């Protein structure tokens, strides 16, 4: 996939945010209704709970052109389903270790807890992530591994 560019031909980060319906999605909604301005680079994908976010979805996002990922849900003890975020936290601790061991850039994934009342925190997290990814540049390193034939066509 072609990297995103702005009108000055500079790199624009493409961020995918996997968020839970009950806290972070509502938080992002609050950021909107409060007219808080934040970077437009993020595409929000809504899930019933952080516990539903499969680790493969993150790899699929990177593979299909995301330069950065945000994973966000309810604060611990605030889960709508009591324990979904605790399960998710374990999964991300293990998964992050594995990605780091494989040499996948874990700095491109932002994990956060954003409650329905934290619209401003959501805006900050998006802005920080976009700034960080802007510095890191497009994640072509990962996409290059996707397919031998694509690699030959696109990069040689």
């Amino acid at each position, binding site marked *: 996939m072609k990297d995103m560019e702005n009108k000055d031909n500079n790199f624009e980060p493409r961020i995918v945010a996997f968020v839970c319906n009950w806290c972070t999605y509502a938080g992002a909604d609050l950021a909107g209704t409060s007219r808080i301005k934040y970077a437009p680079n993020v595409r929000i994908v809504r899930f019933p709970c952080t516990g539903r976010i499969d*680790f*493969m979805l993150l*790899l*699929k996002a990177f*593979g299909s052109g995301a330069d950065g990922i945000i994973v966000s849900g309810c604060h*611990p*003890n605030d889960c709508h389903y009591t*324990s979904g975020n*605790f*399960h998710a*936290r*374990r*999964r*991300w*601790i*293990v*998964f*992050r*270790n*594995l*990605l*780091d*061991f*494989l*040499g*996948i*850039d*874990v700095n491109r994934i*932002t*994990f*956060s*807890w954003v409650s329905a009342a934290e619209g401003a925190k959501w805006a900050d*997290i998006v802005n920080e992530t976009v700034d960080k990814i802007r510095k890191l540049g497009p994640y072509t*390193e*990962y996409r290059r*591994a*996707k*397919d*031998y034939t694509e690699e030959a066509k696109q990069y040689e």
Partner: protein
Amino acid sequence: MSNLEETARSLFKEEKVNLIIGFEEGSRHPRPFFCTSTDDIPKLILDKRCHNNTAVYLTKKDLLGTGLVGIVATLRVLKSALQLSLENQINEGQFIFIAGEDASDVQVLKDKASIQSYVDAHPEIPDSKVEERLHHIESMSREDRWAFWKNELSKCIRCYACRAACPLCYCERCVAEVNCPQWIDPWAAPLSNMEWQVNRAMHMAGRCTGCGACYEACPLDLPINLLTKELSSEISEDFGKGISGNVLSSFNPADKENFFK
């Protein structure tokens, strides 16, 4: 304490086992052997060269028949059997374990407690080669680690020997075969190979007993056992040494992390 041949004979005679899974001399290495009658007992061997983790057969119902089954068990077999029992994949009384490291000195273990005490009494010596490789990879920069794994895993031919050799990969329908959605591309390409190994490692998280059967089975000698080994050591660091079972299906509100904002 008795030798393997006598023990096997008595199991056939007194315990009425129908089958003993053990090892026989192969053309180059010992290989797994299904001993179904007393005539075959002299073929059974057990020594340091018996590497295969024959616990992989414990969950293959079509191979075992309906009767009681004996299994010649090295330490790695016993460890895998304990994990399988923890996951309710095998039951007490279904198998008789002939535990030992050498054919001259074996003992019969029938219940979980005796297997556990045998395993506790025989601590495993950490494989220095594996530890060394692990430290070597950990000390690389992230870019080098990526280059290393991309290079290694791009050789993978997706034969799934790692899955077949692992006693704990017993799912009847594997995520690698799920095509709705197609989580993992079925062809061999660097990224889909990596995705397969990420899945394998994640599904092994906290369950892997570190026998290295996946590495030994790999026709391309890819160091894929390091992935599960690394996760095991991280998990015991993060969630405590005594943890057993599937760490990902349980949680502790006191779990610590340092990367959530």
